[in-house]
């Protein structure tokens, strides 16, 4: 039999990253690699440092120490905090996509749904109005928003629709790495289900690489290939999602898993 073909070039490599606000508050000793097409979940209780880590990874908060190395489309390995601000911004815009927990933080509430998507396209160089409008309508349909609502303001949308619009806005520029912090956090369960289905389908269809923060182990089970478990700023366990959830090794992970009814 033939050996499987496994990707050996990580998209993102995280070495000894530390960002602390106080003793054991923030994140420290974080090491992992993310491979193309993988969905990595960061799980752990509130305050364990998940968002701090994600903010470091998404270029929004420089770590106190450690390296975050991103392998670009052009094949360059960039330490994302070693490059200048302008270059980092360009990198974030062209290769990263960041989905915020609250849609209002990731959308521009005063411009139309179509413009929310169009703006991102223009930011990466698209200048043709007709094309931008077509792409925007197309994306609205992909996230199951009626394309006729292209001129409506996000504030006229429900919370679930706003979140789907934010996802469309982020994905329209074809990011290679998508970072999400509790993307279904504040939503009702039925609305949450629709967004999770959407994310699952898009991730598979577009072969996206994703790092997602969630405190919900059922969400992790549904979407993530691999998990990192954080407690008090440290990674206490990492591995394949089903291994972590079905045969957790660390006392804290066992506690997390045993605290939910059906993870």
């Amino acid at each position, binding site marked *: 039999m*033939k050996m499987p073909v496994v990707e050996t070039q990580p998209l993102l490599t995280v070495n000894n990253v530390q960002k602390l606000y106080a003793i054991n508050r923030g994140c420290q000793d974080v090491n992992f690699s993310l491979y193309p097409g993988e969905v990595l979940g960061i799980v752990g209780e509130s305050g364990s440092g998940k968002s701090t880590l994600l903010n470091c990874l998404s270029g929004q908060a420089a770590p106190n120490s450690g390296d975050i190395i991103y392998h670009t489309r052009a094949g360059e390995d960039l330490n994302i905090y070693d490059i200048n601000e302008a270059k980092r911004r360009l990198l974030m815009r062209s290769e990263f996509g960041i989905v915020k927990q609250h849609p209002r933080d990731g959308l521009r509430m005063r411009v139309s749904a179509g413009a929310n998507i169009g703006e991102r396209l223009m930011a990466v160089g698209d200048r043709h109005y007709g094309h931008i409008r077509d792409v925007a309508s197309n994306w609205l349909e992909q996230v199951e928003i009626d394309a006729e609502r292209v001129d409506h303001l996000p504030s006229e949308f429900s919370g679930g629709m706003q979140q789907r619009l934010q996802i469309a806005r982020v994905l329209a520029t074809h990011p290679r790495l998508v970072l999400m912090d509790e993307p279904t956090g504040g939503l009702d369960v039925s609305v949450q*289900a629709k967004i999770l289905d959407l994310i699952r389908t898009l991730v598979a269809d577009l072969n996206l690489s994703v790092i997602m923060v969630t405190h919900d182990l059922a969400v992790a089970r549904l979407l993530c290939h691999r998990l990192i478990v954080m407690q008090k700023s440290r990674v206490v366990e990492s591995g394949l999602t089903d291994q972590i959830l079905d045969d957790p090794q660390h006392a804290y992970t066992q*506690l997390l898993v045993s605290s939910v009814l059906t993870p």
Partner: protein
Amino acid sequence: MSSARLVVNNLQKDFILHTQNSAHIPVFNGFSLSVNAGECAVLLGPSGMGKSTFLKCLYGNYKITSGSISLYFEEGDIDIATCSPEWIHGLRRQTIGYVSQFLRVIPRVAAIDLVSEPLLIQGIDKDTAYQQAATLLARLHIPEKLWALSPTTFSGGEQQRINIARGFIADYPVLLLDEPTASLDAKNRAVVVELIHEAKAKGAAIVGIFHDEDVRDKVADNVIDLLEFVA
């Protein structure tokens, strides 16, 4: 066809339950097994002995306490006990098929999508994958009107057959079968026996657990009693 594909050496599995006074549950120890291409090894042992645990170790679902699980490829061998998650992932995509005892259904995903998924992940086009899924679902007597529905509401036997279809659709060179015939009627049991024979003919190395003595006699090349290795 006598080259070993799967060699388990001195395998040990313990559970330590930290949240329950660090209870220590040794399951098995010193377990060794070798399976050739085209062979089916069958595990015996009473309920609770660790049969499912063993298959889960082979699938990388449970961590291994000590010992090794080697898979032999043309290019060399891989030890599941020490391989990284990316590799386990790759092995599950291309090499190891697993029919678990219970189907873990993804809510809201149609039966036909679940069954064709392993082929899609291997990069096979949607039409071909759907066609093969349909053929397999029909062989396993799943009525066509159920194909577009999520198996969440299916009967135990129907869920099991969805699981079986997922395990057999991709011609995996290594197959793990955890009581696949437990809740099937005679007609569907016979289909499973046929599928196992076809997989063996294609060279699959199979490790299975079968309650049904008749099925076991029809498929087993080697029977191993786990009771000897109980820790």
